[in-house]
């Protein structure tokens, strides 16, 4: 799974990085999301899906990396 973030949409809610600081970070300049780990390990995927669903602006999207990876 590959994570993408749309920094235009991000409202800087801090939600993603509060729950998954290993994966998401926040810029000190604009308060918006930064990606630490664009391709999380398999053990993180479920948690990442949960956070993506909770992002208040839909700024986090998840993408398959190749054919075997949905």
């Amino acid at each position: 799974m590959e994570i993408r973030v749309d920094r235009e949409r991000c409202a800087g809610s801090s939600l993603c990085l509060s729950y998954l600081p290993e994966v998401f970070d926040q810029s000190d300049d604009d308060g918006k999301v930064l990606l630490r780990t664009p391709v999380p390990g398999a053990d993180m995927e479920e948690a990442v899906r949960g956070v993506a669903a909770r992002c208040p602006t839909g700024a986090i999207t998840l993408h398959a990396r190749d054919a075997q990876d949905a």
Partner: protein
Amino acid sequence: MPNEPAPVPLHTRRTRFDPADELRRLSDGGPVTRVSLAPGAGDRPLWLVTGYHEVRQVLGDQVRFSTSRFGARSAAGGRAAQRPDEGIGLLMDYDPPEHTRLRKMLTPEFTVRRMRRLQPRIEAIITECLDAVERAGHPADLVELFASAVPGPVLCELIGVPRDDRDDFLRRCHAHLETGKERSERAAAGTAFTRYLAALVARQRKNPDEGFLGMLVRDHGDEFTDKELRGICILLMLAGLDNISGMLGLGALALLENPGQLALVRDDPAALDRGIEELLRYLSVPHAPTPRTAVEDMTLGGKRIRAGDTLVCSIPLANRDPALIDEPDRLDITREPVPHVAFGHGIHHCLGAALARMEMRIAYGELLRRFPGLRLAIPAEDVEFRVRSTAYGVERLPVTW
């Protein structure tokens, strides 16, 4: 003859922790219902949005739904085109692109890292409040000494109101929000704290410090007008008081009524974090976000909405929708967090969410750690709930330990 108190608006009615039956019955007819929330509330069509998905749809779509009572897009709603002075800077009441301009400058001041700088001060404030609980002895009112006492000083710390000014300043903020008071008294309190904040802004313009206002002035001094800065401070003060006091008071009561869950959150910080999300969902203290005005005709939840109609989104009903979560009426702090809408959704998602989460984590954590034998000092049926305010809560919570 004394004035009859106005009836409690339908969308704010609750029975203990739950949305009131008459409110729930409304949602039986579908996720969007034409309502009259209170007598004299105006003659334009008003819709109550109660379905989780529909609430997310409305709050997530700033193009078709406006929060602004002013400006061109709201003219469809027959509203004033000119923003009055006292409305300047109140973020909820702005649409893009003005909302984007203001929010973009504020967001960096509310990051998790920024809020952590406040943590020692917040811990000290909470410790002082719990000292007062301990001194008050048995029973102590947890609302007066804790739930309502914590958020004011925390917000003063955030915006930089000096210690000596706090008591007076906070008294006025609380007086403004007190629905039982005379209108003229509330207006006078509002005028007084507005004047105070204008002076605070002027002082920071001259000598910016390391706090929130000082940083804003330093980084964006030319891009904010004084009235905008003043309005932002007003908004932060008023948006952060009742919501937090509601969460702390109601949350303490909910945990005291569920001792098994209380023990879990007391003993495990990770369980406390999850528990706070579930309490936010289950308690849903804000009744509704800013009403939205439809900008164009549309169909929503099977109903025909016309441009200019007002939509009120019910936070408690959306957060209790089975479309969000199984067994929505059960408080279960062991659940995995779900995308609840207690902080709203979309571009107006609560700016203070990181601060609120940190404040609640410290407050619940310290309360439970310090008073492991905490219990209600009155029968649970006698607890009075705070109904007439922007956020739900309890009036008094006598406890012993």
